[in-house]
């Protein structure tokens, strides 16, 4: 059950150029959260910005949660100026978490850019529920934008890097790095990142008969399934049920349910 709570900021640091990690005291939210869920954050009180901003839960602690975010526009810029000791209003946990199943032998997390945000908590949960450390692919434009590498290594995960310019790890895309890992029967892939990346990862998985869960994004107003604003097209026969809500039906979807043609047409193939 989600809550709306004023949460004290217990830590707030830069975590890479233009990226921040914020730790929040939020026992009520932490008690109910699972990896893959998100919160709606009021970046500043008042009517400007008017809406909360959705943020994945990075990690879940006994008494709170952390967020990992990128300054994208005005809202995230304002959020980055809030000091430790001050409070922000947080609504959450919201949405459907990543499914975890001890029967899935080879979990692989594939992150693009800030898409890594929900994965530290997911890796922790997979380890504690299955005893297995997932493999992790982290892709970014260049080495300075690779986030959380050490965190995953500390947990015992095998980490593969990929960068557009080759400045860290393999030069190339996340999907190529994933293909190199040759996922096959028993593997399950968790993906989060730009749309084009998730689509490419989905294609690799389909070709190899591997289940893939992706965490999608959409502009959100309520974050809670109420406004019908955050929908994307799904592969559903019944026309009237094609539009699924990223906030309440997702953000995590089995990628085979997503109508990728519609997504890609909208972004013109761009992420």
């Amino acid at each position, binding site marked *: 059950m989600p809550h*709306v709570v004023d949460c004290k900021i217990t830590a707030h640091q830069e975590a890479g150029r233009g990226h921040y990690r914020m730790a929040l005291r939020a026992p009520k939210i932490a008690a109910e959260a699972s990896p893959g869920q998100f919160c709606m954050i009021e970046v500043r009180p008042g009517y400007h*910005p008017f809406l909360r901003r959705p943020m994945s839960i990075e990690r879940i602690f006994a008494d709170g949660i952390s967020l990992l975010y990128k300054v994208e526009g005005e809202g995230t810029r304002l959020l980055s100026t809030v000091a430790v000791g001050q409070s922000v209003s947080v609504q959450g946990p919201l949405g459907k978490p990543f499914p975890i199943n001890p029967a899935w032998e080879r979990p692989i997390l594939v992150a693009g850019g800030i898409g890594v945000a929900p994965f530290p908590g997911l890796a922790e949960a997979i380890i504690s529920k299955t005893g297995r450390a997932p493999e992790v692919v982290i892709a970014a434009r260049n080495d300075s934008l690779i986030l959380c590498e050490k965190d995953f290594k500390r947990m015992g995960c095998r980490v593969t890097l990929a960068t557009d310019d080759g400045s860290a790890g393999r030069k190339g895309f996340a999907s190529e790095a994933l293909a190199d890992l040759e996922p096959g029967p028993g593997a399950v892939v968790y993906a989060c990142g730009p749309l084009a990346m998730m689509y490419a990862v989905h294609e690799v998985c389909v070709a190899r008969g591997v289940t893939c869960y992706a965490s999608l994004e959409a502009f*959100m107003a*309520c*974050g*809670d*399934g*109420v406004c019908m604003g955050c929908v*994307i097209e799904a592969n559903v026969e019944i026309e*009237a049920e094609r539009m699924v809500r990223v906030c309440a039906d997702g953000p995590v979807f089995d990628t085979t349910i997503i109508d990728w043609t519609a997504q890609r047409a909208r972004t013109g193939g761009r992420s």
Partner: protein
Amino acid sequence: MSVNLQVNIGGLVMKNPVTVGSGTFGYGQEYNNYFDVSQLGAITVKSLSLKPRAGNPPPRLVETPAGMLNAIGLQNVGIDAYLSEKLPWLRKHGCTIIANIYGHTPDEYGQLAERLEREGGADAIEANLSCPNVHNARDAGGCKLVAQSPERVAEYTRIVKSATKLPVFVKLSPNVMDITQPALAAEEAGADAISLINTLIGMGINPETRRSILSNMVGGLSGPAIRPVAVKMVWEAASVVKIPIIGMGGICTAGDAMQFILAGARAVAVGCASFRQPDTALQVVNGLEDYCKRHGVVDINELVGGVLTR
């Protein structure tokens, strides 16, 4: 001091004058996670159509200064799923229900109203004649919205009225030159109350991509940004009609709600403010009670239309 907050909206008794804007509160269940939604005067549900609707393609939303634009296109589960899946929960929790309906033709409105009454699906009907996000209403009397044509408003109102004995509210659009005309048309055709305002039509363009941000090009503007327009329309409409008005448009606080009540609204609806703060409507209920106590008002009905002329 005990304060009477109960109001009678054209036959619908509400224990307090606060409901929610259709489409901003789902069917009540989600926000019951944050507070007991049956404490509200009524819950106005998302527009219901005869068949489920997929709505417009995304993107459907964009934030604007002190507000937002939406082009949902009335995505909804349809009357069948409402009656079987949503209604039982609302009834079990003791909610007073205003069922907002949307049809492609006057006849569809009639069918929806008739069915809702027959199956106990509503305590009052709100006919949405003013959604700016649906194309199929475009040819209504040369106007884009039914609510832009007083004749059509009268026609639709009469049909809904003759289909049900439930109180019938007519939801009008601010996208008109003179709100008193559709307001009077609704009253004369037998509406038990009018709801004011639906969203203002607006548009947002992303200069970087040069595209309209909404797939539907235009959308409906809501939020505090439009509140001054909404208060003025309620005030104007209240000066000509005798039936009650449900005022809405950017209400975030009890003070905002009081502006509408003083302008002439007997009830108010909290709309997209719930997206930012799910319990806004309850805060407004409590704030209205405080206001009455602070001002020594024993019955909130005394304040309706009480704005002083300078």
